[in-house]
């Protein structure tokens, strides 16, 4: 602690401790009288004599002086840890303190006041004349704990006088001190006095606190009677000094209590002034003072002025900064950075230029879009698995090659008309109607139905593989419909075939018909094109007539309830056949199925175009979709016309009986006989036998006529077709037999292995069976079943081969007849 005594020329002097003025000899009496006399006067009331006084601090002896001249003071203890100051009190200040330390009633204790009070007897008056604290450790004697200690050393009527701080310059500290005294359980009466030297030092009016166990009021100071005269202080004015405004007193509520644990007094001393009110801040929004006041002073050597000066210096420096020059310098510095670093910084700057909210929104929307797409594709795939991922639908298959025994097509199954995808394949190359063992012909014994897998056209359904909602595999309806091509329901195009005949519903002309009472047709023959391939051997012509192709040279014309055997070269019917109801029924059924398919295709395309039709101006495929729809609608009309033109067989018409064992049905109403002749069921129901030379009724009721060469040619072509189909079936059967043999060998090998495994490991030993693992006994059983099935299939093929061999014999016998008769 630094001590300085400022001696002046007029013999006055002032004491400074650590730079703080402690007293000025010129007006120190105001301070010490104001400090000591009120407490002594009030204590004197209760104890006129024998007062015990404790002075804490006050080593200068000036407060001691006041106590000693007061009447009734019996004993004074002075406690001060600063021996230097006490020494000055004995020496340099002795004249001023009137040799107070020489008084017999005085006991001086150079020690810490805390320790002194530990075992002290109660005092009537305690004077706390400590210096204003400038360090945290100095504030110990201003804490609640200190005042609590003091209160224990105080008599019930005793009083404590405390050297407080200036309520004018550090009001927060002053009122904090009062609150602290009150927190110790004492009543605290604040009052102040004006000390000129303190005011000149900038301390302002100085404050004191009077504390007691008993309640203290301002009136006590007003009615204070001092038995000793004062030299400088006006005791009568102390009452006024105890008057504080409501605003000043209200400070106390906002201030904490100074305790040993919460030492808040020093910061309040060093940083006077609470924050501005909000109204004041609003009036001066750019005032720096509120900001500066936020900077705490943490050292006793620092002042608010120092802080404000430093802060303003900083502000001034920034104000004077040449920002452009600074930015240029930064840019020059940045130019020296590597290019990639500059690029990164540039990207960073651009990135940061986006508002954080935008980035968050972008991320959120990306997430939402992804979730929506996933949900949509999942939903679509669940509803229509093949469509959602544009897998399409590719029907067909099974044409030609057959790994299985069951062939699906006639003529070896490699015919164009078997439904291959090629466009423009000639329909004329297709196998003839029902001359195929597979799809049309009914060979062998009657009642067994068709020879092959598929029945005769006349007996059963021809259609195989037509989807209810057709999937177009070809673009026939988009491009080639009606343009010299015939199209099937799958959109596959074939070369159109032409048919020349007289067709107006009034009958057909041919010489035989005329001979037997038929009438000549009234119309000239007309050429008609095939437009629609309803089945492999059934065509719908442009006028709605139905044609059943038998071969390249022969066909059946079914119209208006009549069936005519026609050839391709002559418009005249070769022969009017019996209108078998079964034939008409099958045709009608066939047309009906096609019609339904066309209707579904139309509906599908209408729905599609109802959505995307407006894009036809931009997308050619939509325009083609429209064209396709138009063609389908045209086909629909023609099929309706075909229903009308088909007509019905006459009432009472009967279906032909099944062929006998010696007969092989080439087509409805046409049978190959044992002797090579061909029986044709004529229009009136009887049978005509054609042997290549003559044409006679089987009942021998009429004259035999020469078999017309065209009829022979037609029958010959049918036989050739039948032979070709038969040869194809034979080849197919041979292939199947080879596969069966291979399969049988494999099955037998597997069977032997399973048997060995069972023998070696037991029946429950698990073996591989395809993709499964099953017990050996089960594997043997299943394999044996497979072997049995293989055998059965082999027998079936062999039986079929037998029939085909028989057919060959008959065809071989018949062919020369009709070839010669052509």
């Amino acid at each position, binding site marked *: 602690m630094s001590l300085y005594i400022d001696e002046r020329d007029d013999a006055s002097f002032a004491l400074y401790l650590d730079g703080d003025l402690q007293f000025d000899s010129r007006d120190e009496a105001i301070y010490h009288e104001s400090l000591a006399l009120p407490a002594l006067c009030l204590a004197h009331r209760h104890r006129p004599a024998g007062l015990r006084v404790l002075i804490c601090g006050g080593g200068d002896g000036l407060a001691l002086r006041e106590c000693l001249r007061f009447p009734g003071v019996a004993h004074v203890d002075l406690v001060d840890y600063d021996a230097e100051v006490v020494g000055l009190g004995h020496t340099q200040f002795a004249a001023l303190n009137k040799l107070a330390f020489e008084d017999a009633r005085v006991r001086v204790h150079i020690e810490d006041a805390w320790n002194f009070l530990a075992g002290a007897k109660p005092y009537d008056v305690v004077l706390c004349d400590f210096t204003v604290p400038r360090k945290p450790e100095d504030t110990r004697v201003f804490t609640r704990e200190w005042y609590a200690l003091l209160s224990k050393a105080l008599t019930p009527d005793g009083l404590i006088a405390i050297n407080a701080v200036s309520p004018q310059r550090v009001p927060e500290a002053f009122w904090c001190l009062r609150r602290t005294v009150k927190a110790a359980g004492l009543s605290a009466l604040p009052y102040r006095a004006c000390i000129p030297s303190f005011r000149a030092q900038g301390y302002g009016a100085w404050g004191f606190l009077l504390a007691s166990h008993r309640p203290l009021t301002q009136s006590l100071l007003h009615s204070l009677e001092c038995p000793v005269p004062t030299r400088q202080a006006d005791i009568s004015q102390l009452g006024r000094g105890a008057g504080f405004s409501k605003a000043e007193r209200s400070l106390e509520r906002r201030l904490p209590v100074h305790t040993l644990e919460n030492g808040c007094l020093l910061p309040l001393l060093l940083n006077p002034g609470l924050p501005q009110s909000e109204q004041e801040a609003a009036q001066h929004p750019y005032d720096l003072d509120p900001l500066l006041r936020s900077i705490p002073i943490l050292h006793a050597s620092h002042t608010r002025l120092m802080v404000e000066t430093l802060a303003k210096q900083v502000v001034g420096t920034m104000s004077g900064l040449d920002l452009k020059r600074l930015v240029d310098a930064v840019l020059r510095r940045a130019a020296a950075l590597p290019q990639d670093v500059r690029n990164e910084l540039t990207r960073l700057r651009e990135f940061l230029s986006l508002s954080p909210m935008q980035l968050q929104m972008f991320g959120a929307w990306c997430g939402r879009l992804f979730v929506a797409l996933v949900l949509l594709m999942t939903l679509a795939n669940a509803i229509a698995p093949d469509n959602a991922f*544009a897998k399409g639908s590719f029907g067909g298959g099974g044409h030609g090659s057959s790994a299985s025994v069951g062939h699906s097509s006639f003529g070896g199954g490699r015919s164009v008309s078997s439904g291959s995808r090629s466009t423009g394949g000639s329909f004329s190359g297709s196998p003839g109607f029902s001359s195929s063992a597979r799809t049309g012909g009914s060979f062998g014994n009657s009642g067994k139905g068709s020879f092959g897998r598929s029945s005769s056209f006349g007996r059963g359904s021809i259609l195989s593989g037509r989807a209810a909602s057709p999937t177009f595999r070809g673009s026939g309806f988009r491009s080639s419909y009606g343009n010299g091509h015939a199209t099937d329901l799958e959109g596959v195009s074939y070369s159109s075939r032409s048919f020349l005949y007289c067709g107006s519903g009034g009958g057909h002309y041919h010489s035989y018909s005329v001979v037997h009472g038929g009438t000549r047709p009234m119309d000239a023959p007309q050429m008609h094109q095939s437009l629609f391939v309803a089945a492999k051997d059934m065509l719908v012509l442009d006028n709605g007539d139905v044609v059943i192709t038998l071969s390249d040279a022969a066909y059946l014309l079914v119209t208006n309830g009549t069936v005519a055997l026609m050839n391709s070269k002559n418009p005249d019917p070769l022969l009017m056949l019996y209108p078998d109801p079964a034939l008409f029924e099958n045709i009608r059924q066939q047309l009906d199925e096609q019609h339904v398919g066309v209707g579904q295709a139309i509906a599908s395309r209408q*729905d599609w175009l109802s959505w995307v039709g407006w894009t036809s101006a931009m997308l050619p495929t939509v325009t083609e979709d429209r064209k396709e729809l138009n063609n389908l609608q045209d086909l629909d009309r023609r099929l309706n016309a075909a229903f009308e033109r088909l007509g019905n067989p006459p009432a009472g018409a009967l279906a032909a009986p099944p062929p006998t064992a010696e007969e092989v049905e080439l087509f409805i109403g046409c049978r190959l006989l044992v002797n090579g002749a061909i029986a044709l069921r004529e229009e009136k129901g009887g049978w005509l036998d054609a042997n290549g030379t003559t044409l006679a009724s089987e009942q021998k009721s009429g004259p035999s006529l020469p078999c017309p060469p065209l009829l022979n040619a037609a029958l010959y072509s049918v036989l050739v077709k039948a032979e070709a189909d038969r040869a194809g079936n034979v080849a197919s059967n041979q292939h199947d037999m080879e596969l069966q043999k291979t399969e049988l060998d494999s099955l037998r090998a597997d069977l032997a292995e399973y048997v060995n495994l069972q023998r070696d490991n037991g029946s429950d030993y698990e073996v591989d069976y395809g993709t499964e693992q099953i017990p050996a006994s089960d594997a043997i059983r299943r394999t044996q079943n497979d072997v049995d099935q293989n055998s059965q299939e082999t027998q079936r093929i062999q039986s079929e081969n037998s029939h085909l061999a028989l057919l060959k014999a008959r065809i071989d016998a018949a062919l020369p007849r009709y070839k010669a008769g052509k």
Partner: protein
Amino acid sequence: MTALKANRQAQANRRTGGGRGLLVGVIGYLCVSLQQPLGWTIPVWGFFAFLLVPCLVGIAVGRSQKTARTTARAFWTAAKSGGTAMGLYTAVHLLLIGGPHSDGANSGQEFLAGLLTLFAFSLIAGFAAGAVSAAVVGVGAKERQS
């Protein structure tokens, strides 16, 4: 309800307005999807798809956005909801009816046709919904002013 609580409630309504509009749109288009457009006939379907349902979406969104300061927000919220609902409706239908007759060769153009249709219909329905929503908000603002 205090002003602060009312304001918070209004903010919450504005945030959920889009979701409500989307829900209304989805339900509306589910009803419309009971038949294909030709089943309704094109004029009737057009009325349902581009007027009625977007209007319902716009009203649903507009009522939730009535405390919005501007109609623009109401417009875009309803436009997104209505457009999304129409987009889902169109996409599902096109997937169901567009696939069966695709022959593979033209699938690219068919996909493009579907995509164009989806975007165009979504834009139209969204615009309609947005306009209705903006009108609802505008009417509400006038009522408050009066």
